[in-house]
C-alpha cells in the first residue's frame, strides 16, 4: 500500500540529499531566494488592495485543522499559505502579499476570483431567495439550464444539477447503467472522476482508491502520448478497449467515461484519434459515451468550449463541475431526452441541486465567458504560454514534457530525459520556490512530478511571462 508522504518531510530529505551528493544538475545554493525582493522577475502590476486581515494566523489555523479536520488533509507547501482574499487571477495571503494564481483553485475559478459580475449575481440572488428546491418553480434554474444546453452540440439538452463533479459522475454512471441494463463501465488508467463509491471505481490511480468494493469498472490502457507504450497512436490504444469488452465483459457494456485532458493525472491529453475510435467501439457494444468535462470544459482549452470537441466526438452524456460556477458548489449532467427518460422509472431528487443562487451564478459565468471572450483569451494566452514553456524545455533537461491546450497546461519534470524518471523532489522544490517568488501552481500526475497550470481564464501574457520567468530563474539556480 502506498503511503502518502507529507511534502514537508520529502522536502527536508531532499535538502539533506542535495548537500550530500551531486545530481545531474549542479548543486543547489543552500540559501535559495526567500522572498522576491529585487531578485528575479516581478509580478505584473495590479490595481487592487485587499482589506487588512485581522483573522487567525496560519499557525492557529493549522493547529485547528489538525484537531478538527481530516488527518489526511494536506497542504501544498512546506510552509502552508494562508489565503484570505482573491481578485481575478490573483490571491492574497494574510500579510497582504499578492500571488499569481496559476492553479485557479484546481481549474475551478474560471472567470476570476470575486469577478464583479458573478459576485453581483450571487449577492442579489442570495438576498432574494437562497433555497426552495425544485418542488416549486423558479426562473433561475430554467434560464441556466437553457443557456447551458445551448452550449452543447447534438441532442444534448436535458440538464440535471448536482453539487459537485463526483455527484455528476455518479449520476452519469447510474444513468448509463439504467439505460443499457448493463453494469460494466470502462474508464482510462490514470483518470480521476470522483471519490464516492461508483466514481472511486472509475478513478484509476491507486492513491485515490480505498480498499472497498468498487464493482463493474474496467480500466483501459492510458493513451498517454508521453509515457504510453504506443506514443501518440490513438487507434492502437483504442484496441485495448475492444479487448476489454470482448474478453472482460458479456460483450455489452453500460458505457465509457473519460476526461478529454486528464487533470489530476497530470494534464495528459488523450492521443489523437483515440476518442473517435473508442466511441465507435462503445456504441457497437451498446454502451453510452460519457465525457467528463469537470476540468476541460467552459472554454479552458481555448480552441473549443468543451474538451471533447477537440477530439471531434459528440458524447451521450456530459458531466461538469468546478469552473461551471467560478467556485460555487455546483455540478451538472447533460444528456439527451431519450437517455434522461430512464430516471422517470423512479424518483431522483437532489435537495440543493439547481438552487437559485448557484444557477444564477452559473448563468453569470456563461455570460462573462462570452462577454469577456475568455475562450479566445485562453487560446491566445495559452498558446503563448505553451510556446514559452516549450522554449524553457529546450533550455533545461529537467523539463521532460510540455503539453496541454489553452489554459490547461502541464510541465512534466524528469531527472533523466531518456528514461523519463520522475523528478518528484525537484518538482516540490521548484513549486515551493515559485510560491516564494509569487506564483502558485498546482501539482499532479501519478508520480507527482507534473506542474498543473490551470489559471483563471483572465490570465494575461504578462502573467504568462512572469510565470515562465520565475520558473526559469529558479531552475537556473538549481
Amino acid at each position, binding site marked *: 500500500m502506498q503511503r502518502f508522504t507529507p511534502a514537508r518531510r520529502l522536502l527536508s530529505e531532499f535538502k539533506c540529499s542535495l548537500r550530500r551528493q551531486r545530481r545531474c544538475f549542479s548543486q543547489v545554493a543552500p540559501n535559495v531566494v526567500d522572498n522576491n525582493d529585487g531578485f528575479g522577475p516581478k509580478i505584473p502590476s495590479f490595481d487592487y488592495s485587499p482589506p487588512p486581515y485581522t483573522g487567525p494566523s496560519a499557525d492557529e489555523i493549522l493547529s485547528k485543522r489538525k484537531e478538527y479536520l481530516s488527518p489526511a488533509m494536506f497542504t501544498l507547501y512546506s510552509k502552508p499559505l494562508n489565503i484570505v482574499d482573491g481578485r481575478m487571477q490573483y490571491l492574497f495571503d494574510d500579510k497582504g502579499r499578492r500571488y499569481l494564481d496559476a492553479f485557479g483553485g484546481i481549474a475551478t475559478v474560471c472567470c476570476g476570483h470575486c469577478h464583479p459580475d458573478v459576485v453581483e449575481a450571487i449577492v442579489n440572488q442570495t438576498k432574494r431567495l437562497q433555497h426552495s428546491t425544485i418542488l416549486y418553480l423558479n426562473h433561475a434554474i*430554467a434560464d441556466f439550464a437553457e443557456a447551458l444546453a445551448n452550449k452543447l452540440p447534438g441532442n444534448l439538452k436535458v440538464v440535471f444539477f448536482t453539487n459537485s463533479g463526483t455527484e455528476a459522475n455518479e449520476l452519469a454512471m447510474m444513468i448509463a447503467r439504467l439505460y443499457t441494463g448493463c453494469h460494466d463501465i470502462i474508464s482510462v488508467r490514470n483518470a480521476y472522476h470522483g471519490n464516492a463509491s461508483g466514481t472511486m471505481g472509475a478513478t484509476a490511480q491507486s492513491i485515490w482508491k480505498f480498499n472497498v468494493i468498487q464493482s463493474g469498472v474496467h480500466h483501459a490502457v492510458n493513451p498517454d502520448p508521453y509515457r504510453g507504450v504506443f506514443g501518440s497512436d490513438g487507434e492502437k490504444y483504442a484496441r485495448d478497449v475492444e479487448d476489454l469488452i470482448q474478453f472482460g465483459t458479456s460483450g455489452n457494456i453500460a458505457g465509457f467515461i473519460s476526461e478529454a485532458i486528464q487533470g489530476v493525472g497530470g494534464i495528459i491529453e488523450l492521443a489523437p484519434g483515440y476518442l473517435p475510435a473508442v466511441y465507435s467501439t462503445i456504441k457497437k457494444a451498446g454502451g453510452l459515451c460519457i465525457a467528463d468535462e469537470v476540468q476541460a470544459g467552459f472554454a479552458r482549452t481555448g480552441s473549443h468550449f468543451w474538451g471533447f470537441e477537440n477530439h471531434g466526438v459528440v458524447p451521450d452524456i456530459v458531466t461538469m463541475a468546478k469552473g461551471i460556477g467560478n467556485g460555487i458548489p455546483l455540478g451538472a449532467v447533460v444528456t439527451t431526452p431519450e437517455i434522461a427518460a430512464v430516471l422517470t422509472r423512479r424518483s431522483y431528487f437532489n435537495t440543493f441541486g439547481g438552487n437559485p443562487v448557484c444557477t444564477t451564478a452559473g448563468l453569470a459565468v456563461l455570460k462573462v465567458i462570452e462577454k469577456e471572450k475568455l475562450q479566445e483569451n485562453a487560446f491566445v494566452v495559452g498558446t503563448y504560454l505553451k510556446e514559452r514553456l516549450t522554449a524553457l524545455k529546450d533550455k533545461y533537461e529537467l523539463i521532460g514534457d510540455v503539453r496541454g491546450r489553452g489554459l490547461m497546461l502541464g510541465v512534466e519534470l524528469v531527472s533523466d530525459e531518456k528514461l523519463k524518471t520522475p523528478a518528484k523532489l525537484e518538482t516540490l522544490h521548484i513549486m515551493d520556490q515559485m510560491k516564494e517568488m509569487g506564483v502558485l501552481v498546482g501539482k499532479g500526475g501519478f508520480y507527482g512530478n507534473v506542474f498543473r497550470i490551470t489559471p483563471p481564464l483572465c490570465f494575461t501574457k504578462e502573467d504568462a511571462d512572469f510565470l515562465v520567468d520565475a520558473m526559469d530563474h529558479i531552475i537556473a539556480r538549481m
Partner: protein
Amino acid sequence: MAMLQRRILKSTLEEAKARFNFNWYPILSPCASFSTLPSSSTTATAHDHVPPHLPPFDYQPKPYNGPSADEILAKRKRFLGPSLFYYYQKPLNIVEGKMQYLYDESGRRYLDAFAGIVTVSCGHCHPEILNAIVEQSKLLQHATTIYLHHAIADFAEALASKMPGNLKVVYFVNSGSEANELAMLMARLYTGSLGMISLRNAYHGGSSSTIGLTALNTWKYPIPEGEIHHVMNPDPFRGVFGSDATRYAKEVQDHIEYGTSGKVAGFIAETIQGVGGAVELAPGYLKQVYDIVRKAGGVCIADEVQTGFGRTGSHYWGFETQGVIPDIVTMAKGIGNGLPLGAVVTTPEIASVMAQKIQFNTFGGNPVCSAGGLAVLRVIDKEKRQAHCADVGSHLIGRLRSLQDKHDIIGDVRGRGLMVGIELVTDRKEKTPAKAETAILFEKMRELGVLVGKGGLHGNVFRIKPPMCFSKDDADFLVDALDYAMSKL
C-alpha cells in the same frame, strides 16, 4: 416518475372529486359530508366557515419582472427533463423568501411550513447569515483546502463543540448524499466488514450507493447495491410491534446472526425518518441496537440531515433524544440554511483509517459555505432556536392533537419540536392511507396560503418542518387552515 406521479395525482383527484362531489373553492358553502367517513360530532367552529388569515408580517417583497410560471414550466420540461417533478397541479413560482414566509410571482405571501425540505433552518434570507455569505463572497469564494483559510477551521471547531463524546473530526462535503457515502466508506474501512444495515422506510440519499441505504421503493432505481440489508422499521404507528423497541431490536440481532458473517460494517438511521413521513423511532430502540451492532464489530451512524441543529426542541441532535452517542454523524440541509453544504463528524480513531489514501473534496469546506455555516450555528444559539422549537412545537402538536379528536381522517400526529407529521387515514382501525384526501388537502392548504410537505411511502403524511423562526401565530394559522380545509372535505 414525474409523469407517473402526475398521472396518479390526476386520477386520485378525479376519483376524489367524483366520490366527494364538492366544489373546489367553497368559501361560504355549507359543510359537505363524506360518504365514507363518519361525520364528527363536535360543533363547527368559526374556522369552518371563514378561511383563516396569515399572521401579519412587516415586509414588502421586491416587484417581480421575471418569467412567468408557464414560461418557466415550459423551459423545465424542455431542458430539465421529464423526471424533474414538482408540487401542485398548478406549480408555484416562488421568487422570494423572508424568514418563515415565501412569495410567489404576484407578491402573494405564503407560510413556509416545509422550509425547502427542512433546509432553511434559520429563516429565508436571515440577515446575519446573509451578511456572512455576502461579505465572504466579496473576499474569497473558493481556493480549496490546499491553502489555509480560517473559515473552515473555525466552523469545524464550532461544530465539533456541539458534539458529545469524542466526535470531533469534521469532513465537509456538499450534500447529505455525499455525507452518507463518506460515512459508509468510513464504516467499511474501519471495521474491515462490508455489511451495512439500515431501516425500512429510511431515506439516506439519491446517489448510487446511498440508494442502497434508502429503503423506499419510490427512490430506488434497479441497480446493484452491494451488502446492504434493511431491517424492520420500529414504527410506533404502523409497526407490527407498536412501540416495543426490544422486539424490533431483536430483528437486528436475528439479521446479524442469520444474514451476515456475524460481523457488520455499520448501522445507519435517522432518529425521526423524514421522507418516510416523520416517523419517530420507538423509544429505547437505538440504545439496544447500538449495543447489538457494536458487539458485531460495527459502527453506528446517525443521519442528522433533517433532525439536527435544535429542530427537535428537546435536544440539539436527534440521536440525543434516544440517549445514544453514535460513532459517526452525518448532516446537511439545515447546516447552512440552504447553502450547498454537508458534513460528517467522527472520532479521531475512525478518521485515521481515512488517512491511508487521499480523499479530497474540491468544494467542501469552501470559505463562503463555512462562513455561512458558522453564522447558522451562532444564530441558532443567539436566538435560542432550540428552546423555541420545543415551545412552538409542543403548542403545534397540542393543537394538532385536538384537531385529531375532531377529524377522523387524522390517523396520527407525531414528531417533536418543529419536526412534525400528520398521517391521514380513511379508516382509523385499518389505517388505510388516505392518499386522495391528502392530495386534495395539500392543494387546499396552498390555496389558503400554507405550504406543507408530503411524505410517507403512500404519500399520506403531511410533513410540517418550517424554518425554526416559526411562531405560535404561524402554528395557529396552519392548524386553523387545516381545520378549515378538512371541514370542507
